[in-house]
């Protein structure tokens, strides 16, 4: 049976269509965003503990960081 392609093993090459530069006056490299913005556009790779639901864990993160909206990428209950 042929093993189907595992998404995290796909190798991609970059194809160049045109050349241009980016103006440093606009935007930021993701790692260089100002702190407040860095947090608001941030993701935490959290090790979910046993016991609480994914939803509860996200709510705790929200309280710890004092944020308005915290979500999670895929329930870890089943």
């Amino acid at each position, binding site marked *: 049976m042929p093993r*189907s392609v595992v998404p995290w093993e796909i190798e991609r090459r970059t194809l160049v269509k045109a050349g241009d530069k980016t103006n440093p006056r*606009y*935007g930021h490299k993701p790692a260089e965003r100002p702190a407040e913005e860095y947090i*608001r556009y941030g993701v935490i790779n*959290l090790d979910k503990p046993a016991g609480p639901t994914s939803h509860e864990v996200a709510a*705790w993160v929200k309280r710890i960081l004092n944020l308005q909206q915290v*979500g999670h990428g*895929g329930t870890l209950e089943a």
Partner: protein
Amino acid sequence: MTGVLPVTLEESRKIVQALLHSGKEYVCVMKLHGDATEKRVNEVLEEFEDTIYQRPPLRSSVKRQLRTRKIYYIDFLEMDGRNVLFKVGCEGGTYIRKLCYDIGEVLGCGAHMQELRRTRAGPFIENGDIVTLHDVAYWFMEWQQQKDEKILRKFIQPMEEALALIPKIYIRDSAVDAICHGASLTAPGVLSLETEINNGLMVAVFTLKGEAVALAKAVASAEEILNMEHGVVAKTERVLMPRGTYPKCWKSGEA
């Protein structure tokens, strides 16, 4: 159930859909309800290394209709009496509890999921930058006291990291703001793109600074886009960057 749970802060919630559809990897302890030989367990696990049918369990958050999910691999790790330890790589939305039940049915003795740890969700892996709730509380307190941005980077990653496995299209500064207003991406705005892009596939539209602008659906393959001079190459589905981050460079209708 423990392990990798990507938590999105504020604006990054917009990339949740990309994470939900991303592949997952789990390490699972399955408890057999009767005796089975290691050889037989191996054979049955191998049978499930395929596209499988699953009906979501009674207690689930989606409509309970039969659907298919890909199991990329199941690696048998260890067996102790009736406890079977295995690692499974699968498509997002695969129910491992259901998978264990079905493996038990094929074995004939029955089985249930005893313990589960997620070791990957899309690009996020447990050996990478994973942090505990305690780490989050500790580093956040440190950050508040020292205001050193290096501390933030110890436990928070830019949302772009969550898009690492999605093929990207890099665009000109001048094309950015139109996308932020929901416009489709057209060929002249494209600077470079990754292979393995196909019609209907989700792509991430990025600036040359590596910032995510939007999630979009490609309407042509990478090779086709490379040779296009005009026309839509991807339809914007979810805007990630606020309007006005880059200057507006298009003409308004009434001008």
